[in-house]
């Protein structure tokens, strides 16, 4: 019953399948590498392919923001003069998605906002994946007390309301003055990325740990060890390349979780305030709640749909990746 999905909760949502085993299908088609087989399966996954195309288009669209956006972030569509107000215009030729309370074009602001939110999600997820992979590989390979503590901690955080953990930690980190030069003001983008990464590594750590536990007893690891390979070599040369699928899947879900968490914080007014000349999806979605009862439907609908589209496409890509890299789940 967690409304705001902890990235960890989403990543471990499917019952743990066994480690990817040799794909029977690969035997009949000779000389296809596992990566090629995964790519083949991915391409045959309809929804994932559509989502990939939409996502790539969206990313290109927001990267080219100065060209694709029609107005600047804080630019009004036209000056209020002669009794014609630019406030809360419904969608029309000058402003495709309407304007907000001070006459700014919602369409252009959404492009800039999505850009910032995607960057936040990606950055938080990358940090989370790196930290989580290291922790998980270490815990799985060494076991012992480190493993025990890691599992206990993640258990509690998985079941604890994620938003509460975020809010309390946010306040605490914001109050510690000597941390400020490192992590920034609590309304800065850097702060929010680090805050989300702080919780984002756990899911990845669990996934990697499970993979390592399943793989470390296999013969090829044993062979490698017999030939004198150390822990580091085994992790880098054998364990990680064999777990790349699940790690990628966990990462896509972390990106979505981070974007939604950022928007949720923004919705309640605890999100980033990315300076005067940018905005974020969280801020835009946050303004929607003031417009629910006033009948400015475009202020509610478009930010919400944009967030939904971003979350959905990345989720679909992740789902496709999961099916492609874990043949056991798909074949059923």
């Amino acid at each position: 019953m967690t409304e705001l999905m902890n990235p960890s909760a989403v990543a471990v949502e499917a019952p743990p399948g066994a480690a990817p085993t040799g794909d029977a299908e690969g035997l009949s088609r000779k000389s296809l590498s596992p990566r090629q087989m995964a790519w083949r399966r991915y391409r045959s996954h309809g929804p994932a392919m559509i989502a990939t195309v939409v996502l790539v288009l969206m990313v290109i669209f927001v990267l080219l923001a100065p060209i694709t956006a029609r107005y600047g972030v804080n630019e009004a569509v036209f000056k209020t003069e002669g009794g014609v107000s630019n406030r809360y215009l419904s969608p029309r030729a000058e402003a495709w998605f309407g304007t907000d309370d001070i006459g700014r074009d919602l369409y252009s602001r959404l492009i800039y906002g999505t850009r910032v939110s995607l960057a936040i999600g990606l950055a938080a997820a990358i940090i989370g994946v790196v930290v989580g992979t290291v922790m998980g590989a270490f815990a799985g390979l060494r076991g012992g007390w480190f493993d025990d503590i890691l599992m206990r901690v993640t258990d509690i955080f998985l079941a604890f309301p994620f938003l509460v953990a975020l809010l309390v930690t946010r306040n605490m980190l914001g109050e510690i003055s000597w941390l400020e030069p490192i992590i920034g003001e609590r309304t800065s983008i850097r702060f929010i990325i680090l805050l989300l990464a702080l919780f984002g590594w756990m899911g990845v750590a669990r996934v990697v740990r499970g993979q390592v536990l399943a793989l470390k007893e296999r013969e090829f690891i044993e062979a490698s060890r017999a030939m004198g390979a150390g822990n580091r070599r085994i992790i880098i040369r054998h364990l990680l390349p064999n777990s790349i699928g699940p790690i990628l899947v966990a990462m896509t879900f972390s990106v979505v979780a981070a974007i939604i968490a950022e928007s949720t914080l923004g919705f309640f007014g605890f999100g980033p305030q990315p300076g005067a000349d940018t905005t974020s999806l969280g801020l835009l979605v946050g303004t929607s709640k003031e417009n629910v009862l006033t009948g400015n439907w475009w202020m509610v609908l478009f930010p919400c749909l944009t967030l939904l589209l971003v979350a959905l496409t990345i989720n679909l890509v992740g789902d496709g990746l999961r099916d492609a890299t874990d043949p056991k789940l798909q074949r059923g």
Partner: protein
Amino acid sequence: MFRFIVRRLIWAVPTLLIVTFLVYVAIRLGTDPVASYRRSNARASEAKIQQYIEDNGLYEGFGGYVKGYFSWLGSFLSGDWPNSIKGNREVWPNLKDAMANSIRLAGIASVLSIIIGVTFGVFAALKPGSVRDGGVNTTALVMLSIPPFVSAVILQMVFAVYTRQWFPEATWLHFPTSGVYPPGQHGFNLLEMLRYLTLPVIVVAIQTIAVYTRYMRASLLDVLNSDYLRTARAKGVSERTVLVKHAMRNAMLPIVTLAAIDFGALFGGLIITENIFEYPGMGRFFLTAYGNGDFPELMPWMVIVVLAVIIFNLLADLSYAFLDPRIRL
């Protein structure tokens, strides 16, 4: 089994102490309870503030945190809870009501989600790879991608503004969008209550249905592939018995665990939904207390939530061991 329970229960105590201590430190650092007290009670005398510090054990310094934690723990365990800083109210009565409201909302949503989710999960898993399997799977993913505040805000807009504008006649469509009862309502009224619960339950259920559907599908697919099902079919057990007696019963195991953990998380309330629909549950209780920096309200809330999480995690483990004879504890 008995030894396992005892061992886990013994472990639960230090876990609880450590977690509540960390939460205590986090809240004290994050909200600065004394400053919040001054903000809420601008005209409080120095003596009053001293009394507040004394009651809550808000001593300064590292040693003060440890000492303060134990003094807080003592008064918490003896049931002598300090009053809230906003309005100087007793905390327990409000907390109790909030808990009841949250359990009602989340309980109804959970039960509905489990029933609907399991049904769809089975429906999809019986024909893996088919169009209907893909349809259910993709629909579930779409539902999973809808953040609760998005569905809440859109439903609220539709039902608070537009259904009233477009269909002024159809009063049954005018679902209320805030609170538990109409203003001025006293006593119990099931019909009104359900009307007020409709939209929040839908918002919560959208995501949980998707979670249960996907979980059930994956779990049943796993079971359907197993050797003992092939054996059962081979010895001539009817397809119906194979499905109901062999497959379903085993596939439900992870669902039971998931549900147990879910029920534990339910005590934390549904912060997003409750706040948008102004539903006075645990989530709203938390966000209000958090906004006020209300230390005497935040701490008991945290303890209850942490306690529920630990207990239901234990129950999840136990239920698994109890239902699955292969697991010996």
